[in-house]
């Protein structure tokens, strides 16, 4: 039997019979040209497997979220004011936190003993937890306790570095429950400078405007002038500038 490229491909894909396998294995040991041909095929096949997934733009996720939101069963009066809802970052962020908090309270009371759940959040080990849920849960519990300046630093770090939009969004809201300090003001402005997700950008703008932080003006102007920034964010920044 002749071993050609077609047969090598069958061998590569694991589609050869036991008899063919034995024969090809022997031939590969003896025939250097065939061996080279097979090695090339195997290398290409292996590299193909290691190709990473393609990354869609953030716009796609944002679009899906907005669409799903519009599909949710809400009273007609709220549906008609969807644009206002989207523009109101503070409202959106607050709603998200309330929903998350509600979820956790419900979830814990239903499925997790309180003592056990507290043990995962009373320290600061939750900050480095790989679970987004645990980090959000950690923020929620940390802000329920007496205000501790150390928690502010943790929240600012999460706001700067956490990869989850929901964690950063929750951190923005949590920071607003603390007495206002320069650290918080600077942290929020720096986060806005770096943040790329519209929903978090809107929450940050809303927080800074709510704190009447005039130092945020240059950053709001920068957002308005940045062509990569979404229109809803620019509108929120424009509104914020007027309020400041």
């Amino acid at each position, binding site marked *: 039997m002749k071993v050609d490229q*077609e047969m090598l491909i069958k061998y590569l*894909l694991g589609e050869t019979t036991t008899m063919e396998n034995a024969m090809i294995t022997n031939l590969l040991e003896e025939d250097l040209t065939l061996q080279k041909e097979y090695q*090339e095929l195997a290398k290409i096949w292996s590299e*193909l497997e290691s*190709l990473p*997934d393609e990354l*869609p733009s953030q716009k796609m996720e944002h679009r*899906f979220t907005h669409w*799903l939101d519009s599909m949710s069963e809400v009273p007609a009066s709220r549906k008609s004011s969807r644009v206002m809802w989207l523009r109101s970052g503070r409202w959106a962020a607050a709603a998200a936190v309330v929903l998350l908090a509600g979820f956790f309270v419900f979830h814990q009371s239903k499925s997790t003993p309180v003592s056990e759940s507290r043990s995962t959040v009373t320290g600061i080990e939750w900050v480095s937890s790989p679970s987004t849920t645990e980090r959000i849960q950690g923020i929620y519990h940390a802000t329920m306790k007496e205000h501790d300046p150390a928690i502010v630093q943790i929240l600012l770090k999460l706001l700067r570095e956490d990869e989850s939009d929901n964690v950063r969004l929750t951190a923005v809201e949590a920071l607003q429950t603390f007495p206002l300090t320069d650290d918080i003001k600077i942290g929020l402005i720096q986060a806005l400078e770096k943040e790329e997700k519209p929903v978090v950008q809107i929450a940050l703008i809303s927080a800074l405007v709510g704190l009447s932080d005039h130092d945020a003006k240059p950053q709001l102007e920068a957002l308005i002038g940045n062509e990569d920034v979404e229109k809803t964010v620019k509108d929120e920044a424009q509104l914020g500038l007027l309020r400041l």
Partner: protein
Amino acid sequence: MSDEEAMMEVQSGNTRMLSVLFERHHRRLYTYLFRTTRDRDLSEDLVQDTFEKIMRKRHTYRREYPFGGWLFRIAKNMLNDHYRNQKLSTVGIEDFDAPQDPRDVERSHIELALMRLKPEFREVLTLTKCQGMRYQEVANIIGISETGVKSRVHRAVKALKDSYVELKMT
């Protein structure tokens, strides 16, 4: 919760569960569509259209359907519809000779070699090798026989090797 359970939740009115399915699958679906079409905007539109169609057609879903296969089959139908509307039965290979997106130029030889293949070759390689699907699953998605998929994969591997070698020599 499995994909199938999540989809049953969507079907029974908990439409928010669709975001869980989106989170789990949108990247691999986008990867499949982008590797087939080489058009980022079109692929993103098709991902969105696919999930919108899932919402509209949720009453037709049955728990025994593996969700992933169902999702990809809907996406493939959307892609076919798109080409039909564009009056293109398939996209010409000449459209893919040179990468249009500057990000693509920087990519590895294997990705460039893949990019130069015919769309139907890229499609079967993406589904079988990159997405790890069996021939039977791919056959259900793209609407040809299992033997047809097998034959197409063989020809695609050969074409990929030729494309790869050619790139290496330039």
